[in-house]
């Protein structure tokens, strides 16, 4: 019997719940020890525009879902990832992570999703408030998602880093466009496949691959992006993005300030950083004659 020929996987990008190739037709060959691993899409400005549009269209319905529902959808991602561990293990090892560390990274990634899933319905009890204003008003502050958040994923933590950048952002109802690690893009696309299988509505997560220096500034300049979540070691590029972000006063969160590898990353402040505070005033009828007896 002849040896079975393996099917090789095509790594494409993830926009609006679909897996197109980049509209530019460009690619780069990812190699290890001179053996080609995959042809990875070099996305373009047009891909970024499509991704932002998809994220914007997804925002209303995702942010209007109940926190409980979002929490369960994120939990579902963890369930799917748990069942697809082997694929990620293979890819992490292909990309040069030793197997022990790869196993740890996958477990950590799954647990991290569960951790942040739990915050969906707990952020407001912790950070929202009822404000005792002096006048006769019921005054309260709640946190709401910002809108479309553009994420530049860390270079050297291809799975845990990307998950840690996306999950705390979408848990509150934001939608995202992420640029995957340039050197290690394989897990990012496989993660997109898991997400696409997990009841996450189309457009909530968009992931493109390609050259950060080319793509990231497009996100920073885009007038329909509300915030940037950055993991950038390249100081020049980072400064450029922070500068460009001022065009529509995008909020900029430096995700790399939190140590992604450590458990202390697991805190609600990163979720809060991608939310806006909204305060509502409502009059309370004042009735001087009414008593307040026990």
């Amino acid at each position, binding site marked *: 019997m002849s040896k079975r020929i393996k099917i090789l996987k095509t790594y494409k990008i993830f926009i609006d719940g679909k897996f197109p190739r980049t509209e530019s037709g460009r690619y780069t060959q990812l190699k290890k020890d001179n053996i080609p691993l995959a042809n990875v899409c070099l996305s373009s400005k047009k891909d970024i525009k499509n991704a932002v549009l998809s994220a914007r269209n997804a925002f209303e319905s995702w942010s209007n879902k109940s926190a409980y529902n979002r929490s369960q959808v994120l939990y579902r991602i963890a369930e799917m990832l748990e069942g697809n561990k082997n694929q990620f293990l293979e890819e992490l090892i292909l990309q040069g992570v030793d197997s022990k560390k790869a196993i740890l990274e996958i477990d950590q990634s799954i647990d991290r999703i569960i951790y942040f899933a739990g915050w969906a319905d*707990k952020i407001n009890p912790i950070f929202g408030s009822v404000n005792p204003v002096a006048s006769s008003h019921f005054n309260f502050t709640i946190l709401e998602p910002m809108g479309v958040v553009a994420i530049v994923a860390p270079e050297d933590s291809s799975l845990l880093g990307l998950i840690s950048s996306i999950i705390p952002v979408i848990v509150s109802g934001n939608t995202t466009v992420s640029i995957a690690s340039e050197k290690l893009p394989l897990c990012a696309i496989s993660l997109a496949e898991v997400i696409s299988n997990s009841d996450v509505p189309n457009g909530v997560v968009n992931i493109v691959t390609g050259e950060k220096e080319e793509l990231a500034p497009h996100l920073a300049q885009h007038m329909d992006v509300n915030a940037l979540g950055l993991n950038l070691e390249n100081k020049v590029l980072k400064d450029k993005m922070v500068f460009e972000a001022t065009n529509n006063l995008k909020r900029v969160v430096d995700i790399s300030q939190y140590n992604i590898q450590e458990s202390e990353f697991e805190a609600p402040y990163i979720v809060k950083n991608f939310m806006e505070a909204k305060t509502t005033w409502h009059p309370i009828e004042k009735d001087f004659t009414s008593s307040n007896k026990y």
Partner: protein
Amino acid sequence: MSSKIKSLKYNGKWDFSPSIESIEDISLKKEYQLFINGQFQKPISKKYFPSINPSNEQQLTKIAHAESKDVDLAVNSARNAFNGHWGKLPAKERAKYIYRIARIIQEKSKELAIVETLDGGKPIRESRDIDIPLAAAHFFYYAGWADKLQYAFPNRTPKPLGVVGQIIPWNFPLMMAAWKIAPALATGNTVVLKPAETTSITALLLAEIIQQAELPPGVVNIITGDGSTGELIVNHPDVNKIAFTGSTKVGKSIMQSISSTTKRSTMELGGKAANIIFEDAPLDQAVEGVINGIYFNQGHVCCAGSRLFVQESVYELVLRKLKDRMQSLVVGNPLDKNTDIGAINSKEQLSTINKYIDLGVKEGADIFQLNCELPNGGYWCPPTLFTNVSQSHSIANEEIFGPVLAVQTFRTTQEVINKANNTPFGLSAGVWTDKGSKAFNLASKLKAGVIWANTYNKFDPTSPFGGYKESGHGREGGLHGLSPYLNLE
């Protein structure tokens, strides 16, 4: 508004074709054992008591009766689990077990809903759409808290209490079990839970789910029996906290029993909630809310809106709408998806309700009951309302725990606040008005733990629930449901 009151005619044309939920896939065991240390064990006394379907009085199964030695075993197993594996487990891992329970409840929701309806008599529509989904949601919600407690209590190191004894009522059997067990586990405690005598089955199905979730042995123990079993849990020296949901009378006696001990407690007791309709309210919506407020779950609801206060100017109109709406309620087989009002949970409860209905008539109120045929066999009570009720009537003061509404009127805001607060209870209240500022005024003046404005009987795991005054102390649900299970010294 014309003073001529029109009324709808009901002459049998409103019948629905029956749509009975199939029980073919449900197989109950012949007898149910005690769930202790991760295993189902026969009671040492070998005593069992029957569990009855209240809609036809047929025996569903037999339930083990736990006595002193069984309670010792359960408490010891909970103590060992607390001192052992469970106490040392990282919070993150604890969370995963609780998530598993939530997911398995969701998977089994259909059979749980059917059994809940068979055992308790509540309409399948309610067990399917409310009890079971809320039970799952409660576990899911509290699972997420397990590894986030430090954010709920800044500058404190929250620590579990130890072994908690939990005693729950028969009106929402599985949901009450979830309300009790989920926060206790999330905060790291171990549990001995006793369901109510008439509704033990779904708690034991939950025990099977807990086993399937591979929760370490002893973390949750579920033992069955009557009030005497509950007393043994309350008085057990190695129990650190009692969480009780039930009547104010039993709640007080538990508080007396533990008064000279260091045991902590939460009490979720009776109620006599005011549901207040102002003249500016959206009346159809308000009537819908009043119906849901008192007839939901046959009125077996501690927060039932059993006292209706209607502003005089709209009284006649509201009453007509209310009576019309009552006539469209379907009383009958709880397994029928059309049923609004199922069976009364037990013979005892039916006689309590009937006693109050007789008292209402005797004390001079006017009775109105849904004109409908009641099924043969089983325990039934048609939706009932009383008008011409005064503040001193028993039906306006005491908790009936049945489908009986006492209607009174008021003229001013001040008057209704006084009337509404004139009760030893303080669990909940409802306000119906289109004026937001009035709703918030009432919300601040009413002495109750939960205020529903232009809605009623809404529950959510994120929303704290519990009463003022003789309706108990402590809260269940939300952030406020955590501290009753924690030591924050």
